[in-house]
Every structure is written in structure tokens, then in C-alpha cells.
């Protein structure tokens, strides 16, 4: 849609819009993202990322935190999390 399609501003504060919820459900086998008339299974890593999208933490802080938590190179975390959050935003499951 625009030239920011492959990046996310460091100061963005990603959050789930009203109508989208991350829930843990034993019967469904783990984390699921509930959205308008859709249900997406979330793996443990995706759930850890989405849990941090509270609207309070900045994107840069979320990436820092994940790099620290998983003791992984920041560049790689940045690329992976950007791809994940962009994909969710394109499906209107996340606001940046």
C-alpha cells in the first residue's frame, strides 16, 4: 500500500484493535487469536510477541525485550517480528 510496507517505525506502539483477542484455550490446544469471524492458531513464539503488543511498549522496546529474553541477535528478531506484525496488520488483526 505504501513505502513503509516492509518496515515498522521504532516508536510505533502496536496493539490489538477492539474485536481481536489473544486467548489461551486448552480444548483448542494452545494460544489462539480471536478475530471477527476468524480464528488463528498462534504458536508459542507468536503468542509471546503478540502478548507484548499492549499499546504501551514501543516497537523498538518490544524487539529489545525479545532479543534479551531469547538471547538472540537483535537484527534477526527485528526481521522476524516485523514480518509477523506486518502480516497481522495487513489482515487487520493489529494496529501499528
Amino acid at each position, binding site marked *: *500500500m505504501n513505502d513503509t510496507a516492509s518496515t515498522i517505525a521504532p516508536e510505533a506502539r502496536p496493539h490489538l484493535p*477492539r*474485536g481481536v*483477542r489473544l486467548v489461551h*484455550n486448552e480444548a483448542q490446544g494452545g494460544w489462539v487469536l480471536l478475530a*471477527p*469471524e476468524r*480464528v488463528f492458531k498462534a504458536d508459542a513464539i507468536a503468542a509471546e510477541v503478540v502478548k507484548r503488543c499492549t499499546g504501551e511498549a514501543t516497537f523498538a522496546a518490544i524487539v529489545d525485550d525479545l532479543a534479551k529474553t531469547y538471547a538472540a541477535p537483535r537484527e534477526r528478531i527485528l526481521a522476524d517480528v516485523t514480518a509477523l506484525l506486518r502480516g497481522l496488520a495487513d489482515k487487520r488483526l493489529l494496529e501499528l
Partner: protein
Amino acid sequence: MAGNDSALHTPLGLLAELTHRCPLGCPYCSNPLALDPRQSELDAPTWARVFNEAAGLGVLQVHLSGGEPGARRDLVAITAAAHAAGLYTNLITSAVGITAATLRQLADSGLDHVQISIQDSDPASADRIAGYEGAFARKRALAAEGVSLKIPLTVNAVMHRANIDRLEDMVALALALGASRVEIAHAQYYGWALKNRAALMPTAAQVKRAAAAVEQLRARHHGEIVIDAVIPDYYARLPKPCVGGWGRRSLNVTPGGRVLPCHAAESLPGLEFWSVREHSLADIWANSPAFNAFRGTDWMQEPCRSCARRDIDFGGCRCQAFALTGDARATDPVCYLAPNHHEVAALAAVQEDAPYAYRRM
């Protein structure tokens, strides 16, 4: 016996048909021709019990539908009960019969999402299709109210011969209304729509143009609005995996409390449906004869039985198979492998600009 895929799956969604009453008369209505009367409707406490049982079964989302759910005076209490049960609540409405005040109460009661149907982008045509003067204006007003309350909105645009050429305008309308999602929902020929099939069926040329238009719109509005669309049944080569597989993903509770594997299942002969008045939802899901009738793959005949896609599309739709062949166990004739697939094209070619038989109780 539940077949090769015999594990009992966990349902994800519950379609709660709160009432069959509806002020509109849409000729493509998916409700059955024999509608449940008002005096047979489940009361709010019973719905609350059903929602709690559904959550216990693992259901995540409830779709509050009808008929027009706004015809229920206790809609707010019913919605609050679904929310209290921990379910994601989705209101499927014509918008006629729900006031701005009611919508505010619903939002305060935990409503997660609203889906509003639109009949056309042209107001006069929309009202003619709905069989209700002024419906279009009320839809616009309620959509605006929902957006101002920050309730996410899906526009459901049911497509057929009279409006399919305005598909782009209908998506533009959905965007203007503030929808985050639009369903290009081709009429499906069950219930009232089957009765009106010749008057509703689009031409092959219209369907082809519409499919190309959807691709262009998706590219143009990527990230702006989600456009859900599938090839309409009678022009498809592969059948739809109806309700994600019989007794596998979802259940449907009628206004009177009968529990169906899909909303059209009562069109099939010889099935025994159980009611929430006599059984728990868990008992019905696992043991009711109707839910076990087409579970798994043991019920299949050839060519489904040995087909590589049998666990992908589950033989297509049982109600469509019965409606078009007279045999509920037949391969859905929409499938190119079905022996009578060629008859579907012949049926689609039967088009007649007859007056609609409006859906009335």
C-alpha cells in the same frame, strides 16, 4: 461408527439462531421454508446455559443470528450471557430493529464484532431486494453508530444477478461505512434461495467478471479492508468444505433449540436432531444421530471414498448433494468428479426474471 477420521474434534463456533422473525424479506434467505414460530423460541436463561456448555466444549466464538436477532427484546441479556461465558460475540444483523441505544448497550455488554448485511450499493435496489422500504438508510445509520462506538464492522454483501455488476460499488460502500472486512457472499441455494434460484442466479459472464474484480480490489485495498470471497457453488470446479466438515468445527442451534450440524441440515430427510431442552450440548455433539450421520469418511460413496481430497473438502455439502441429486450421501455435484457434475451447469443456465418469492413467516 465415525469413520477413518474418527477422533471427536473440538467445535470452534456456535451459530445461535435467536429467532426466525425478521422484518426483511430477502429472497436468498438461508433459513428453512418452515420457520420456528415465536412461541417456540428458547428463553434467555436457556441460551445462557447453552453458551456456558459451548464454552465448556471448547467453542470460542458465538454468532448471534436469526432471522433478525434485534427482534428479541432480551438481546442485550443474551449477548451479555455469551460474553460472561467467555465467548467471542459476533452479532449478525440486518440492522433493522436494532436502535442506536440498543447497540450502545450491546457494546457495553461485551459485544466484540458486528456484521451488517447490505443488499446493494444502490438504495432503491437494496430496498427492493430486502422487500423493506428504508432498510438501506437504517443500515448506513447503524453502521456509523457501530463505528463511532469502535465496534469492528464486517459488511456482508450477498451477491446475485441483480447486484453482482455493482460489486466494486459495494466494496466502496463497505470502505465508506468504515468496515474492516467485507464478505462477497454469493447466494447459496438452500431454503428460500433455492426457491428463488432462477431469479437470483448470476450469468457465467457476471461471475467471471466478479472474480477478476475481487482480485483487483484486493490488490488496491491491501491492508485497508479484508475482502473474503469464494467462487459461487454452481460455477465452481471443486466443492466447498461445507461447515469445515460435518460435526467437526461448528454447531447451529435453532430458535426452538434443535442442534444442527449446519443451518440447512433440516432439509435432509431422516436425520434425528436432538434439542438443548432435553440434552446437554456435549451429549449432542458426541452422540446425537444427526451429528454422527456424516462424520468422518465411512459414509462416503465413490468417487469421494477413495479421493485424495476427502479430508480436505469432506465430499462437499450434504444439503447441496441432496438438493441436486436426491441422495444426501452423494458427492456434491459441484465437484468435477461427481457423475452428475454436468447437470449443475444446466441448472445454472435456468434463469428467469420472475418476481421474488420474498421470505415471510
